[in-house]
């Protein structure tokens, strides 16, 4: 009952939640219609557009709104563990994403059957990678929303990710001959949301290195999935600890 109510809340939290899902689905259709893509290309679009931007839209202010309005003050005086509150909110968003990606797959399949264009070959892997990226970014954004103000959690991630990749690009191009950028790329690859690992996994780029099933390396694909889930857990733990240690007060009377 408690978990059900906490998860249900994430669906009704803000009026725009459903609008976000509809807009995203309409954009898939638009992308498909305009670019008549092949499977992997469409999958790459879903990976970035929904794996990264959708969690930012859905988790914007997920705790920050409640903290700013003072609503959290009543929630945390209920006899429940801070982790339960956090996990149920991330679970609620993840459930939305799961339904979203299943629906996306169905829509793309229907479009493919009607229009007879594009390829469905790797769509499943791209959708799975998108889902993994979604939950990782959602956990990071949710954790940030415990400490930064209303709606700034998503904006902060967006700005930082764009800035970091821009600076990294500049560094990589200027330092290629001068110094080793291994430490920096390793940090971006393993501690950062796993854009590179998951896109290589979904694109089948690891197949050439080890035991393969079709185009996919079994060991590296499993490692990518485990690493992505591990990052989600780490980001979530940070958020749970922050929520448990945080003080909530609006007034000083």
């Amino acid at each position: 009952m408690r978990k059900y109510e906490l998860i249900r809340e994430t669906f009704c939290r803000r009026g725009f939640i459903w609008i976000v899902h509809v807009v995203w689905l309409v954009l898939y259709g638009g992308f498909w219609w305009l670019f008549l893509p092949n499977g992997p290309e469409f999958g790459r679009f879903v990976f970035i557009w929904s794996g990264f931007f959708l969690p930012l839209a859905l988790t914007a202010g997920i705790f920050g709104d409640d903290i700013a309005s003072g609503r959290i003050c009543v929630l945390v005086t209920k006899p429940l563990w801070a982790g339960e509150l956090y996990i149920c909110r991330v679970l609620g968003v993840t459930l939305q994403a799961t339904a979203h990606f299943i629906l996306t797959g169905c829509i793309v399949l229907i479009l493919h059957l009607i229009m007879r264009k594009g390829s469905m070959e790797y769509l499943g892997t791209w959708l799975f990678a998108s889902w993994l990226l979604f939950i990782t970014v959602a956990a990071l954004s949710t954790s940030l929303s415990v400490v930064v103000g209303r709606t700034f959690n998503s904006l902060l991630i967006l700005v930082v990710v764009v800035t970091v990749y821009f600076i990294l690009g500049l560094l990589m191009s200027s330092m290629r001959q001068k110094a080793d950028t291994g430490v920096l790329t390793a940090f971006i690859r393993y501690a950062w949301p796993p854009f590179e690992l998951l896109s290589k996994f979904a694109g089948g780029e690891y197949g050439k290195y080890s035991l393969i099933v079709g185009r996919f390396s079994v060991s590296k694909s499993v490692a990518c999935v485990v690493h992505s889930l591990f990052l989600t857990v780490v980001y979530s733990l940070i958020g749970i600890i922050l929520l448990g240690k945080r003080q909530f007060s609006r007034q000083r009377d």
Partner: protein
Amino acid sequence: MAMNNNDNKQAAVVECKQLTKIYKKLLAGKSKAVCALQDISLSVGRGQIVGLIGPNGAGKSTLLNLIAGLIFPNEGSVAVCGHPARSIEAHKGLGYMPEHPVFLGRYTARDVLRYHGALSGMSRQTISSQTDKLTEKLQMDEYLDRRCMDFSQGMKQRLALSIAMINDPKVLLLDEPSNGLDPIGIIQLRNFLKELRAAGTTIVISSHRLGELEQLTSDYMFMYRGQVVSFADELACAHAGRLRIELVSNGKAIAEKLLPPSKVLSVSDTELQIAVGDPEEVPDIVIDLAKGGARIMGVLLERENIEDVFVRLCHEGT
């Protein structure tokens, strides 16, 4: 009194020991720190109502927030039902009503009550029966199925009180509960709180409506700049008063003849003002004056209520 004392025979349900709370912004210097509470101790027994009073910035909400476990003290400790304030065990017996309640606008009042009941670990059946009970007590049946976004301040207050009461808490923390309530709502609230007290619920209430507090409890904690100010003497004095007697004439002569100078506060030919230690003295004073030849036109006993004392103390800055 329940506060700062040793005469509280009952087991303390809320126990605050030497609480100090300093608000300091991150990276700000010590000079910008605000000491919201300083060495406050409070012990409240079962079935007691304690009123926190004081001007804005006195530390009332800070104290409530500390008891609710929303913030942590810099020094001291808070226990609710024998458990640390932020623990799940403490929250099992706690109901908290904030000064400015906020709800999910898309939820109806019934949804909100079901949500908070579920968070308190209640079953669907218990929530339903508790919702019916609270709806009847707080007269919310008209808007139980309306969305919260359409609620007036008074409706929000009633719903917030229902949320605090949903799990039948042992300790109820109320921050300005009568804000936005109409006179009938205030009377209902007062009666409801009296019922709760009779049922053994401990209530800590912060309110600016001192007249309301006065009708609920005689246990007050006057706070000023983060400290408890004892004003028991002031209140005792306030229960005495000033007797104003209107006369036809000869006030000065009558005062000299019949009254001890220490009791006369002011005197003119047509009015006497006399200090009264106990209201029961008034009939005797009037009879003595009449027997002494005073032609009395009117008698008025002026007494300070808690609000007058509060305003005077704030004004004096003591």
